[in-house]
């Protein structure tokens, strides 16, 4: 088993004829994902990397039974794309697009939720279960099948860390990049129970960032509802208050959302804390060994 994606994921790529859509459709196919359809309004009947293109998500779902969408549609149109996917019956939507206004995302999130669909992202690299399926843009080369779950708010930092785990001789069960925006469809709090329930995950690496209280909220879940070992890292300990550090979410205001407060909460909840990204693989291996001995 894996988390949220697997052999049954039938992927439709919204915005497949754009540059990123095409590039990542190819990468997903190489990964082994079942990309069954693409959509771009007005371009129905074409094909991209051998994948049929439809005018609407409804058509794509009717013809190919797609159940998972990956959205590359530009920000001004992303809300509409997501609503279309949800209305067509897609149950998981990975929104890669960045710079979506959070007011749009509020609508997207609450609408999807009311229809029983889940969003990963926006502004995220997506999700991958090595050897099974990938819905998103995480580079294929960093993966190797294994039993470590990874949940991260970052993009490239996730690649760096997942790659480090691979180079250490370990592998991943499922890796989710949650996205760096202020409102995201799937948070640590939402994702942790999925990994707790996944029999193929032995340990979870949690990669946080400064800003907001997502890590503090995650610590609450770890304390009360989580039995697997967790290794945590939080980026941004050197960030000055008030400056926006690239991600819309990564801003520290008045001492809240600092790396220190997050690390303290996670440590108090029983997580092993890595001070720097390159310490993670060793810490994972050591934690697995220690917990295994008990």
């Amino acid at each position: 088993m894996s988390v949220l994606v697997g052999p049954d994921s039938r992927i439709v790529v919204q915005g497949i004829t754009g540059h990123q859509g095409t590039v990542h459709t190819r990468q997903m196919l190489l990964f082994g994902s079942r990309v069954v359809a693409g959509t771009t309004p007005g371009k129905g009947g074409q094909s991209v990397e051998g994948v049929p293109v439809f005018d609407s998500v409804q058509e794509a779902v009717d013809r190919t039974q797609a159940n998972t969408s990956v959205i590359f549609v530009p920000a001004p149109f992303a809300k509409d794309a997501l609503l279309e996917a949800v209305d067509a019956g897609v149950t998981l939507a990975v929104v890669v697009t960045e710079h979506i206004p959070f007011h749009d995302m509020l609508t997207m999130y609450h609408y999807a939720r009311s229809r029983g669909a889940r969003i990963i992202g926006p502004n995220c690299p997506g999700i991958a279960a090595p050897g099974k399926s990938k819905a998103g843009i995480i580079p294929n080369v960093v993966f190797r099948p294994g039993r470590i779950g990874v949940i991260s708010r970052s993009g490239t930092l996730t690649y760096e860390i997942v790659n480090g785990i691979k180079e250490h001789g370990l592998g991943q069960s499922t890796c989710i990049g949650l996205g760096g925006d202020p409102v995201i469809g799937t948070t640590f709090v939402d994702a942790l129970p999925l990994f707790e329930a996944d029999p193929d995950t032995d340990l979870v690496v949690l990669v946080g960032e400064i800003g907001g209280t997502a890590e503090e909220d995650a610590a609450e879940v770890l304390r009360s509802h989580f039995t697997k070992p967790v290794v945590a890292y939080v980026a941004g300990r050197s960030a000055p208050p008030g400056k926006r550090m690239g991600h819309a979410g990564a801003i520290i205001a008045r001492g809240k959302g600092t790396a220190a407060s997050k690390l303290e909460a996670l440590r108090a909840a029983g997580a092993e804390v890595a001070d720097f990204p390159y310490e993670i693989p060793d810490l994972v291996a050591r934690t697995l060994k220690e917990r295994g001995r008990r």
Partner: protein
Amino acid sequence: MVKLAEWRGKEIFRQYGMPLPRGRVVRSAAEAASAVAAGSVPLPCVVKAQVLAGGRGKGGAVRFASTPAEAEAATGAILGLEFKGERVREVLLEEKLPIARELYLSVALDRSLRLPIVMASARGGVEIESVDDAQILRVPVHPFVGLTGYERRRIATTLGLVGPAVRSLDTVLTALWQIFEREDAELVEINPLAVVGDGLTALDAKVIIEDDASFRHPQYAEVRDDRTPLEEIAREKEIAFVQLDGNIGVIANGAGLTMATLDVLQQFGGRPGVFLDLGGTDDPKKVTEAFLLMAKARPAAVFLNIFGGVTRCDTVALGLVEAMKQVPPAERFPLVARIRGNNEDEGIAILRSAGVTSLHELKESVQAAVAAAGGRP
């Protein structure tokens, strides 16, 4: 994030029917005198510096005037002042109202709830952070529903309002919510919201507009905020660029990786001076532009840390080599590079042909960058 000055916030307030004091924004003392003489600002009046920083009252940036001459003098005294690093270029003159009580009201996003949240307190006029939690009412608002009648009544009760003031609050809340939604605001704050006679009046306005929604609000594009000139150029080129107080420039791709790189740099005694996030790009020209921008910040050394995903390593290497040709010799800086991920081998080969070695491990490359900037390794 576009922070609006009070008078701009109040212009929006007025469009949405928020009750406001009568007043005018001026840019010279003479303009202040004529505004008062013409009766567009009734006396006595308040004279307020239009700066974004808080604490204007205590900092001497708010004054009072009872005559046109006093209004002129107060405006003249405030204009041109430097307040917490900001030059005062505009002054807002408003009628001074008989205030019975000062309240607090705002709407912002609660990220954990993934809902907007209205905050109300009977303790207005002070920074909300200094108000005891028990004295603040927090009302999450579902975006599909808006502020309901019963929530409005709860807010009125919390604020201690009865009779006609409740109807006035209704007007204020409707405006507050509509501004938040329709103007794509991150924050709409009224502090203080004054009880004046039977009704309410917004004495201050703090409005922050979200950058990402600028495609539907071109009117905010011209509004200045707290970016440095180089940060402004970077924004136009869609490069995340933040100036800090150290001397090492850091170029990475992705916010998380950039932040992690800064963390490691500090750990080994380096002081980050500029933080530049290339984001996802496969255009070598954008990389070149980013580098030239970095050169303008005159760093002692630059550390490039790239993990290729959307951005390919060879793209970055090509852009970098081109930029190095364009940087004038006097502005050159030592460069330490670490590029990993997609097309890593091609990127490393391109760098090598230009005499740049790509290091493999984060730790060793950070140490090399610190040494190159003249610090200890």
